[in-house]
């Protein structure tokens, strides 16, 4: 069987190789809809209000399920395909078809830095899908029976941790993942969620991520990923989103969202206060690389430049809406197409996308914006800004507070109706060693303590279990839209851990992963004109999806009492001393015969000697190791203890 198997795979491999070479010889560009595999690459650039630039890379590979292809793919990364349909090598023969991790949906993100919801936007599609908490976040839904989910999850974490050179396998332990029931709006029981806030993100995670691309970073948009420039940014989030359905096959979205600061010339003292002047930038100045040509395997390769609606409204004021070269800014080179957003509120301006097609092989496509006038605008905010902090002092107890502060941004939303009600879902996972008392939940709305039943529409609490389960709080709050601030507080006790339960770097404190606040009745979706079949852009399709507006809060650091980790040594020496003393005296007692000793003493008293002769005799007896060594022993032990103390 095994021999047959090997032969067959070898034959198959040869076949593929031959067919590959033939097809590439015959059709210069054979990558198409045949085989049902597609790859697209897109880059979105967007100036941000605080003199920074957002770059969002979107790579999408799709593999349609086709019985012929089996487990071989032309473009689709095999490692990922195996995550979903992992078949034994001999499955073509029809024997044991092992479906390894029946993943329906998976999202894995590696993030460094924090998304600035105030300046970079909180309600647009980019922020609601690509703003992620620092560290690693992973959630997945499975297509397996409920009892198998946990084992599948554990295997999945190991597979991913090997694939991405990271310690995702720490999510294997039941203390670090949880089962949210309604936060993600998905099926109740088959989802698992886990986060590692302390995971450092670096190039070693990017390289395997790039290896999933058909051109890696050798051609196409990915060539822009110059490591020093992208890791110098203010936010760096690489994400992998996997969805698989029977109908459409597997869709693998790989996105990389970075926020970069174009170089600012700090030449004079005045430049400091001229905060309104936006820095001019171009692709080559930001990435220190030139973009020449696309990945030949990509079906489309394009660059989009987005101007937010607040910029557009300013442009319209100046009288040139939608033009790319005007008195405010200069976009170069000329875009291939202009795509406008359609807004349900016609009186407002809409954002504009300028599209560039990345096709020229020899001439670098250097998209850039040159600002001519000082200009200040603001990004669209989420209606409430979520933040979280610790309260109290001391190493014994404290409380977690989550506050939602109104940003007063959605004026239209506010004016719409007085009885409009806002919904907010709070999802908070707390490690078991932070013992949260959920009954102490207090909710303040506009600084007034509320009756919980008035505010909470739905709540689900999974209390933590020592060394087994993290505590999970899911909460749906409902309150009027006109509210200024909402605050939740929860008291906790800091657990007292066993010495081996402390994580590495225990002296820094322990992390509480980010809480997630979503606003289920707000969606960040955009509709574009000119979105006909000719603009078949997965990125724009993504923007048109109805995504819930959400925001992640800060990671919290809880300082704990930590033992002196060098203490075991001291304890060992101390215990040994005590044991020695104990056994010494015990042996002494067992050995002793009191009556005999008294008789001896009496006889000694009879022939009493002077002080000095007796000392001399004692010393000589001690030297000979004769009875009477007990005081010497004790004296030596006392001395050694003292010596140990002084030396330490």
């Amino acid at each position, binding site marked *: 069987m095994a021999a047959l198997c090997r032969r067959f795979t070898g034959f198959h491999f040869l076949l593929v190789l031959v067919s590959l070479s033939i097809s590439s010889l015959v059709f210069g560009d054979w990558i198409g809809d045949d085989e049902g595999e597609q790859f697209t690459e897109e880059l979105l650039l967007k100036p941000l209000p605080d003199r920074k630039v957002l770059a969002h890379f979107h790579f999408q590979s799709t593999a349609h399920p086709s019985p012929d292809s089996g487990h071989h793919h032309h473009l689709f990364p095999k490692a990922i395909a195996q995550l979903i349909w992992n078949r034994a090598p001999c499955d073509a023969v029809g024997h044991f078809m092992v479906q390894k991790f029946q993943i329906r949906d998976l999202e894995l993100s590696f993030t460094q830095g924090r998304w600035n919801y105030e300046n970079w936007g909180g309600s647009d599609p980019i922020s609601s899908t690509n703003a992620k908490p620092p560290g690693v976040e992973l959630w997945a839904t499975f297509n397996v029976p409920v009892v198998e989910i946990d084992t599948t999850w554990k295997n999945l974490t190991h597979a991913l941790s090997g694939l991405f050179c990271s310690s995702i396998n720490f999510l294997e332990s039941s203390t670090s993942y949880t089962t949210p029931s309604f936060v993600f709006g998905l099926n109740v029981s088959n989802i698992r969620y886990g986060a590692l806030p302390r995971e450092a993100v670096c190039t070693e995670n990017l390289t395997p991520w790039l290896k999933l691309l058909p051109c890696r970073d050798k051609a196409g948009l990915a060539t822009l990923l110059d490591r020093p420039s992208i890791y110098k940014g203010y936010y760096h989030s690489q994400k992998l989103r996997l969805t698989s359905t029977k109908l459409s096959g597997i869709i693998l979205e790989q996105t990389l969202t970075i926020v970069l600061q174009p170089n600012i010339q700090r030449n004079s*003292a005045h430049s400091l206060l001229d905060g309104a002047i936006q820095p001019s930038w171009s692709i080559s100045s930001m990435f220190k690389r030139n973009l020449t040509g696309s990945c030949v395997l990509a079906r489309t390769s394009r660059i989009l430049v987005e101007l937010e609606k607040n910029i557009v409204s300013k442009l319209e004021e100046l009288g040139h809406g939608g033009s790319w070269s005007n008195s405010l800014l200069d976009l170069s080179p000329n875009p291939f197409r202009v795509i406008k957003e359609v807004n349900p509120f016609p009186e407002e301006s809409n954002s504009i996308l300028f599209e560039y097609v990345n096709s020229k092989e020899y001439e670098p496509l250097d998209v850039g914006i040159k600002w001519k006038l000082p200009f200040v605008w603001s990004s669209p905010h989420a209606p409430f800004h979520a933040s979280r902090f610790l309260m109290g002092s001391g190493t014994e107890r404290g409380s977690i507070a989550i506050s939602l502060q109104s940003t007063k941004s959605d004026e239209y939303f506010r004016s719409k109706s007085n009885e409009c009600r806002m919904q907010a879902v709070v999802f908070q996972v707390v490690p078991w060693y932070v013992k949260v008392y959920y009954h102490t939940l207090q909710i*303040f709305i506009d600084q007034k303590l509320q009756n919980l039943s008035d505010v909470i529409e739905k709540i689900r609490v999974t209390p933590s279990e020592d060394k087994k389960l993290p505590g999970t709080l899911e909460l749906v709050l409902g309150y009027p839209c006109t509210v200024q601030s909402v605050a939740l507080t929860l008291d906790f006790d800091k657990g007292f851990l066993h010495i081996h339960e402390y994580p590495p770097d225990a002296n820094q404190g322990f992390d509480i992963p980010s809480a997630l606040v979503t606003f289920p009745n707000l969606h960040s979706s955009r509709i574009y004109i000119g979105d006909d079949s000719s603009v078949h852009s997965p990125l724009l399709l993504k923007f048109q999806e109805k995504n819930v507006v959400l925001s992640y809060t800060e990671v919290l650091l809880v300082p704990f009492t930590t033992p002196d980790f060098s203490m075991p040594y001291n304890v060992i020496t101390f215990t040994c001393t005590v044991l020695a003393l104990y056994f010494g005296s015990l042996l002494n007692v067992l050995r002793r015969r009191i009556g005999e000793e008294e008789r001896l003493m009496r006889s000694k008293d009879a022939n009493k000697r002077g002080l000095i002769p007796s000392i001399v005799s004692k010393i000589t007896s001690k030297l000979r190791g004769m009875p009477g060594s007990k005081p010497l022993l004790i*004296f030596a032990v006392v001395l050694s203890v003292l010596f140990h103390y002084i030396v330490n």
Partner: protein
Amino acid sequence: MAVKEEGDTSQQGKKSRSRLILRLGALLVAHSGLVSVVCCAAGIIAFILLPVLANNTYISENALMPGSADPAFSSQEVLDANRLTMDILNRGAAKASGIEIAKLLREYIVAVGAESYYHKFVPRANKFHPLHFFSSTTDNLDLPANPSCGSFILNAVGIIRAPRGDGKETIVLVTPYNSQNTTYSDAVSLGIGFSIISLLSHVTWLAKDIVWLAADSRYGEYMTVDSWLKDYHGPAFPGETSRIVDDACFEENNSDSLDHIKVEGHNSYVYKRAGTMAAALVLKVVDKKEKEERDSLSIYAEASNGQMPNLDLINIAHYLAVHRQGLRVKIGSIIYFLKASWVKLLGEMLQHITTLAKLLNPKWKLDITSADYVEGTATLASSIYYQALGVPTGSHGAFRNYQVDAVTLEFSPRSSLNNENVRSAFLLKTGRLIEGVIRSVNNLLEKFHQSFFLYFLTAPHKYVSVGIYMIPFGILIAPLPIVAAALFSSNNGSSNKDGSWKWLQAAKVVFLIHLWAMITSLLPYVLLQLPLVTPSSFTSAWAAVAICFLLITYLILWSSSIDCGWELLKSVMIVAAAIGLSLMSVINFSTAQIGAMLIVPMCLLVKPARKQTQGVFAKALMLTSNLALLVVAFPPAALLIAKTLFGASGNIDIGDFWEWAQILWSWNSATYMYLLWIHLPCWVLCLNIFLYPCIGSSSKA
């Protein structure tokens, strides 16, 4: 230790049937007089030797790496600092309202791209909270009935988010200034603070967030910093009253600046936070008139109840100041000791002894010059004094309540700051120093835990750790239990019938006196309700009521006709004092050390004045020493003596005692409790024994 060994060797010859430990104990008790003399002398000598035993400081945490990077603070930042300084002085002179400077600072902070907000609070006076000694969180907000604009304090706060950091930790920089009377040095310190912010807003190495608090110290900088910290660690909901005042006071400001919308914004009063605090630096500039040859830096570190920041924090500041910026580092010292001739004499003697000791064993690193000794003693004295007082030496003390390590760095230029060159060089040095300290703390992965928390400083680079300074204290209080046991056993031995329970009578007396002392300590709470005005009237009322209560206590004691010999009374009193001192040494070591130096000799020596002793000379000696100790150990008397000794000139008023006590309790100092719960009853009992009427009733030789 020495005593034990001595006992051990002298015991060798003796033959007794009991166990060795018991024999040793019995020996010590039998020779309690000798033991107590030896121990007291050894304890005090070892205490005096502490400056000799001090070790050089070293940076214990390797991650700090101070001075390993070149400072980026350049003349550009100096220009920034100068510009802000000038702006503050110009604007501050133009408009005298307290919020002008805060607004200006916020504009500047926003301009460099940092987040910023106003922190606003109503100052409130410290009150006597008898039960709030160890919990500094007072949550009763007693707002004035009709708050006016002037009663609010507005601080400008800037936050730099670390570009790639996760925002879990933060470093706080505080620059106090007085908004009503902004001096030139205040403006310069704000300038330095801003230049640091402007530098850090574009550095790439930042891993922790930076918070800059420009604290308006109109009503005291401690209160401002403390209230900001309280809000940081509390819910910080701006109350309804403050919102009303908001509208009333800041309306015109919001309307006049349409072009400042981005500066003011709608949420400029929303309190923002930035993670757990890793360390805090309070930065001050003092413009001294007299010239020195170098710019200098004074470090203040004592927080409430003798808590100190981690020694590493002081070490970094000292290392960078001395080895990188060439500043002269000073730490508070008591001038009396610098000038006292007896200290100098002692120093010379020690110099000779240590050179002799070095001849014996060159490995002993004990050599100290006389000048070093004098300076070490003066610095140690100030270190002990400020720790014992229990009152923080600056606004860094507020951070300690939240387990945050903080120091105050007070810079003073070598000559007046009006000189352009002097100022630029000064700004460059201070800026680079602070940048270096922040960078070091930023390198830190863990919280400060490597180095010492319990130490005294004898010089900026020398420390005495807890392992060393506990020894003199231990030796000093060791005779207390021995003497107590000796007195008890001698008394028990003499009167055998029902004598074993006689000590309960003595314990009752001691308990009643302690109860009296406790009531006395709570009296100020009642007195504050009375319509008294001057501190002297408070003092006299306090003293009068306390004495009345004491007399009542004695009446109760006499009416119940308790007759327990003075030996038993002394024995129980000594036990109480020993327990009290040991407890206090855990809470605030310095207080316990100073207290022990006063109490222990008094407790050991005290004897009824009427007791017959052989020899007139011995009796006179005993009487005078008893009297002297009784006078010195009385807290007000001790205060007076200290005041005259340490050169506080001027007339001494009765009211001073009240003010002094007020300082102690308003800062939640445990020293207040020590003085009134341990020291005072002990003193009263000693006085009681000294004036004991019935000698010979129980003590017969």
